[in-house]
């Protein structure tokens, strides 16, 4: 049998519950009834309830089957996932909404993540499955969300809050535009194993892979030299060549970035900005990192006006004020000196003390 290819994903329309099939594109408005519960009302008057729960993203097939059982019991077998790893149960029968929520809460599913809350952190693979991580992903997210749980299941914040994590600066995950981003960083250049380089690596490809031109050939050793002052610890060379590992238990750790946003509501999308350049990897619960994230979020929640996202609040009060309110020391690494740096320098003597 010839292998079938290029047939694409399952057609989404076959997955839609009848109420969506009927009211596709004909939704009129929605209401946020309580944390984790939305109702959408169609022009026809039909209603669709959505119950949202957080997932750990890394799940077993047993978990998927369990979620399917719940969807069979309460939603005629229909559910969806969100772009941030939440599960949404799609309920067309009002009588099943409260029993579903009760069932979920009883079985340890966090119901929430809607409205002025923290939603599920987007995160990456970390030590579970990637080769360039500077930290773990699932473990920090678990530790942070245990601390921030109340902000997921309740509405206690001035606005949305998106927390994200990427375990290296390749950043596969939308963390660079998050209210709070946790980013794994390396702080040491690769350590070259010349034997492995000679045996396994295409030297020109390794040189070409370095974005800062830090690598050059070493005719003496028939291997490579890294100009350590130029290296920005990106790990591209390790991807090309197993002889250049840069993971290091002392060098590696976590950085914290704040104030980004994706949506264009009120203000355009913004990048997150570095506020803590380094915290140590301290598994299994990364106490320094969880404390820092919690402090930043609670400082914002205390001082921001209603509807003000982290970055909008900081734009209003000024970064210098953010550092005093959050009690975070301003470190020299926070001053940009990469390609587009001067855009972040101040050119007016109007600022706060």
């Amino acid at each position, binding site marked *: 049998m010839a*292998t079938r*290819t*290029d047939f*694409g*994903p*399952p057609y*989404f329309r*076959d*997955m*839609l519950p009848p109420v969506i099939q009927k009211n*596709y594109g004909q*939704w*009129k*408005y*929605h209401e946020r009834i309580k944390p984790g519960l939305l109702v959408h009302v169609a022009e026809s008057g039909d209603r*669709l309830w959505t119950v949202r729960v*957080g997932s*750990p993203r*890394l*799940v*077993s*097939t*047993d*978990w*998927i*089957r369990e979620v*399917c059982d719940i969807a069979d019991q309460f939603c005629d*077998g*229909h559910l*969806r996932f*969100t772009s941030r790893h939440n599960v949404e149960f*799609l309920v067309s029968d009002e009588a099943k909404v409260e029993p579903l929520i009760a069932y979920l809460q009883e079985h340890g*599913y*966090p119901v929430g993540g809607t409205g002025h809350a923290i939603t599920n952190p987007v995160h990456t693979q970390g*030590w579970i*499955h*990637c*080769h360039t991580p500077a930290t773990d992903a699932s*473990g920090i997210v678990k530790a942070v*969300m*245990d601390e921030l749980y109340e902000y997921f299941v309740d509405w206690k914040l001035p606005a949305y809050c998106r927390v994200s994590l990427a375990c290296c600066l*390749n*950043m*596969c995950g*939308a963390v*660079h535009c998050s209210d709070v981003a946790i980013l794994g960083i390396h702080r040491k250049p690769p350590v070259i194993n010349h034997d492995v380089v000679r045996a396994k690596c295409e030297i020109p490809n390794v040189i*070409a892979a370095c*974005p800062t031109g830090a690598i050059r050939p070493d005719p003496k050793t028939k291997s490579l030299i890294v100009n350590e002052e130029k290296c920005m610890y990106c790990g591209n060379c390790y*991807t090309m060549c197993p002889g250049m590992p840069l*993971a290091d238990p002392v060098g*590696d750790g976590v950085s914290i970035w704040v104030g980004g946003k*994706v949506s*264009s509501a*009120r203000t355009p999308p913004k990048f997150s900005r570095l506020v803590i350049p380094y915290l140590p990897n301290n*598994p*299994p*619960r990364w106490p320094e990192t969880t404390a820092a994230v919690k402090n930043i979020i609670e400082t914002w929640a205390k001082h921001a006006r*209603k*509807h003000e996202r982290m970055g909008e609040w900081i734009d209003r009060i000024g970064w210098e004020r953010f550092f005093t309110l959050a009690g975070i020391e301003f470190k020299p690494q926070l001053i940009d000196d990469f*390609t587009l740096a001067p855009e972040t320098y101040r050119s007016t003597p109007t600022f706060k003390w």
Partner: protein
Amino acid sequence: MADSETPLLDELEEGPWPSFVKEMKRAAEKNEAAKDLLRQLERSYVDKVGHWKHGGIVGVKGYGGGVIGRYSDLPEEFPAVAEFHTMRVNMPSGWFYNTKKLRELCDVWDKHGSGLTNMHGATGDIILLGTSTDHLQPCFDDLAEIGFDLGGSGSDMRTPSCCVGPGRCEWACIDTLELLYDLTMTYQDQLHRPMFPYKSKMKISGCPNDCVAAVPRSDIAIVGTWRDKIRIDPVEVANYANDGLDIVQEVVMLCPTRCMTWDGKTKTLTIEDAECNRCMHCINLMPKALRPGVERGATILVGGKAPIVHGALLSWVIVPFMKIEPPYTELKELLDKIWEWWDENGKMRERLGELINRLGMRNFLKAVGLPAVPQMVKAPRANPYYFWDPEEVK
């Protein structure tokens, strides 16, 4: 009871947030690779470094992407994860499922892999986490049997994604779900066979709320918008005010263009629509009272990318408004031209945004045949270093 082999990870079974360690342990009960994954992860928690390496390229017949090769760097200690490859499986539009499909997927994955997954990966695919080289092809064949194809990886079009759109959102200005399916099917070759200088990502959001982060996270972002007036239901506006929404403080004052006025006596909201920039704030706050207009289409933005190499970029507007209706000819012609220009001019590992930066936006616009319009810029240039085509100096 024997001492646990994973004391550090065990601590992450505690606490209110759902535990990935519990999930790994459930899978480990049935599967050796999941068990070794757990043990290797515990080792990483002790050593504070990862234990994976790149290895040979692996894949399935006929495809150049969709599988990420992954090898333990401690294969003697953790033999069941010596090979532990990821398969990226293309999800349905909007991540909608019925339980029958999901159960079929679980059955295939229990048969061929670790039983661990990400629902979903950061790009949007279903991530099937961990199988050996000899299971890749049989696993793919069984996936094909139940109608699941692979997604992208490497220098190809990555699996595109979209927001829930008309499936459940009254603000969707375009049919994100149908458009995504159509583009995914049209560009199967680009998705499955790496042919570009580097990865190319496409994401579709139905309105400027951008629920799938198209602007920051994709080379080509398609974001729904409208050209006429916000639809107002005056009775519902008054209801919001009566129910305690502070229209002045929470809506009018936060409108970025200050194009709204509120008459507190008559409880009337007026919008000067020509000045509205369609940021969605007021609509987000009063979904029952305000709705996007009816002349709908999309804004196309390009160039977003992560920092790797010269710094990160957010996508830039190149088409302020395009009608998005099947068969999407205008959009597809534009996509083809963009990819062609990038393919011709891009260096290895140069994303579209970096190429535009290197060769210039004016060059890019000329190559793809788009007119310069003020909607493309926050402000015109502030330096006098601009060049003339001899054609223009006559």
